[in-house]
């Protein structure tokens, strides 16, 4: 309750939450609103929004319904964003925790491993991974997760380094708690707030990455996604600008909403900031 109140104090965060809620609702309702496949050609191509009733966002180069694509694409974008973030957390949190907690050689080894991924440009690595594994939802999620875990590991390691010397952690060592208990019960809960904030931003980045991959034609050929829609429409920018702009605005709003929510979470989870208000 208290938490939500603090969250609600940030207006922007509330707006973000509302936009995000709408996108989620759109994604969930997609199969009901547009039971047909979004790939089906339903009308004359290049219909402008509102030109023919029933196709209020118009049709694309192949005569497919843009609104249907948008709704189904929302589902794909959110799912890929969420799952790849969860996978990235599953890799980054344990590595960072182990490195930060044990320090020394383990820390050195794990951090060099992390740097190995950090030195390669994210997007280039993602392209290479997807190209090697053949484009599919699975390979895209994996590629995005693999390029986005290093910052998580870095963050968690930093938090562990500072918290492991707190007196309550030393007290836990003194009463004989095992390393596993200390990591999971004592330290991890106290590192969560920055991780949650980072995760909300990672969802946004993942959506962008997926869109970029689809734009380059590396998306899953069976699923409609926002990035694919923009990519397919880029050759006809001058004749039918709305084909790129509509999914572009959708991406913009979703990413913006996630960023706003992330910022709100940061305020709400950070008691010091909350007190200063």
């Amino acid at each position, binding site marked *: 309750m208290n938490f939500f109140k603090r969250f609600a104090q940030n207006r922007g965060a509330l707006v973000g939450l509302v936009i995000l809620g709408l996108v989620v609702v759109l994604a969930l309702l997609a199969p009901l609103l547009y039971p047909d496949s979004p790939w089906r050609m339903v009308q004359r191509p290049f219909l402008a929004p509102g030109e023919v009733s029933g196709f209020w966002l118009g049709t694309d180069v192949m005569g497919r319904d843009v609104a249907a694509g948008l709704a189904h694409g929302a589902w794909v974008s959110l799912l890929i964003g969420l799952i790849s973030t969860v996978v990235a957390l599953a890799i980054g949190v344990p590595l960072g925790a182990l490195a930060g907690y044990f320090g020394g050689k383990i820390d050195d080894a794990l951090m060099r491993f992390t740097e190995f991924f950090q030195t390669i440009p994210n997007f280039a690595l993602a392209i290479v991974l997807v190209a090697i594994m053949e484009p599919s939802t699975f390979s895209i999620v994996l590629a995005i997760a693999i390029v986005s875990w290093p910052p998580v590991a870095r963050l968690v390691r930093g938090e562990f380094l500072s918290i492991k010397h707190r007196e309550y952690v030393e007290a836990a060592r003194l*009463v004989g708690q095992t390393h596993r208990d200390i990591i999971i019960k*004592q330290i991890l809960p106290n590192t969560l707030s920055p991780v949650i904030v980072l995760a909300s931003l990672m969802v946004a980045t993942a959506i962008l990455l997926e869109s970029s991959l689809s734009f380059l034609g590396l998306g899953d050929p069976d699923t409609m996604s926002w990035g694919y829609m923009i990519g397919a429409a880029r050759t006809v920018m001058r004749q039918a600008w709305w084909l790129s702009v509509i999914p572009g605005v959708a991406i913009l709003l979703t990413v913006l909403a996630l960023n706003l929510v992330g910022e709100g979470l940061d305020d709400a989870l950070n008691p010091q900031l909350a007190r200063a208000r």
Partner: protein
Amino acid sequence: MSEPIQESGAPLLRIERLALALPEGADRLYAVDNVSYDLTAGEILCVVGESGSGKSMTANALMGLLPTGVHVAKGRALFDGQDVLAMDEISHRALRGRRIGMIFQEPMTALNPLMRVGEQIAEVFEAHGLLTPRARKEKALALLEEVRLPDPASALRAYPFELSGGQRQRVMIAMALALEPELLIADEPTTALDVTTQAQILHLVKDLQARRGMAVMFITHDFGVVAEIADRVCVMREGKIVEMGEAREVLDHPRHDYTRALIDAIPADVVAAVGRPADVLAAVERPADVLAAVERPGDAIPPQRDDKDSSPLLSISGLDKVYRSSGGWFQPKREVVALDGIGFSLGKGETLGIVGESGSGKSTLGRCIVGLNRPDNGEIRLDGVDLSALEGRELRAHRRRIQMVFQDPYASLNPRIRVGMAIAQGPIANGVPKAEALAQAQALLATVGLDGGAAERYPHEFSGGQRQRIGIARALALNPELIVADEAVSALDVSIQAQVLTLLDDLKQKLDLSLLFITHDLRVAAQICDRLIVMQKGRIVEHGIAREIFLSPQHPYTRELLEAIPGRRDAPEPATAAAGVL
């Protein structure tokens, strides 16, 4: 409140019915409520109170340093006839630094770490557009000489991190004095310093004040400091003045119960121990009117306890520990000797005090004993078993027998774990079923004087003193034989300190514990310890029965520590103050 008649007539600073409003949702309406006092040139006024009493707020308001959300609700603060609180920013800025100087509590953070000391002092002149750069430099040097920094010429070129805490506080004082202010506000300037350094700084302030005829507003929580330095005292509690008057008068005959409680709460004054037995101290003349705190019978002499001559519970020999910073490519390795051949033993049911200033290695010793640090050499034997040789599971099994109470009641409890669970997790880790451990935790909370409902709450809902009780309950949960208390009461207000010390002593008697009490405060040590170890730079310099150490300290360092306790003398003689470079 009777005002002493001053020769100069109008006071330099007159605060009239000042009220500072706190933001909504705070625990009270006003940080400072209806406060009035005067400060005359050439006078030292001590504003005394515990944390949260609003003692610093008035000073902050004067300097325009009020935290956001706090604002002046009513009242005036007349400095030389002008209302400081109603001033616009420009005229206020002209006043700050130039006519009112301020010293802060934390010398470590009050100086800019990336700027040489000389430049920081020169900056004060620059801010007010005074002097040429060359003259500024000369003035800075003269100031450093005046605050008696050793080797002022090289201190001018030093960065703050190259100076010790006491030296930095001297630099702060030099900056505050640079423009020869008529009023100096000192907000707990000695709280973060060791006792011997504290004594030097107090002398310096007193001396400078006398020489320059400034008015000083000295904010402190320590009645010892008051006795040392104050002409007049103003005691505050929850934003209100409870008592005000001549320092001697207030200390000798406190009229208000709260003042009396504060004075009483100062842990046993060592002076009394030194002062009373005439035969021991025939040579030292006892001051004619010793402070009230000193007069009361029975509070001061460390209680005499039977010598428990049973076999030692803990025996330590030849303990060494050196901290090495590994040094980068271009840096030499640095070595700090924290422990150097430490050896002593601790009997069952005994309380041993380890006293020393910061950097003496006393905390490292405590951490080695509980097993948080590993000594380089030496033995720590608990009932004959050498702990430093144990590893892994065996070590964990033995750890149970030595528990620790930590210094900072705010850092020592996990903010995300309920208090009951925090206490129970020790037994749970050692195989006690969860339900049983939680029930035990309830009982322990009762033992340390908290109600059973406390178990369901989170640490942030408790005050510092209550948290320290929880910390003690956690240490007791494993039925230890030895408790190491590392500065366990240093972070608490004096009145709370006394309660926690009493609790520790009671528990010790009741549960037949041994106690290793690490502190920098001899007054605290006097109250609770049977035997004392005095440490300096990693070595034990004196070792013996607490009472004897207080009555006839052998080592010069111990004597210095005893001398430095504030409030020891009844008034500092100007001669010593002037000469006391120390």
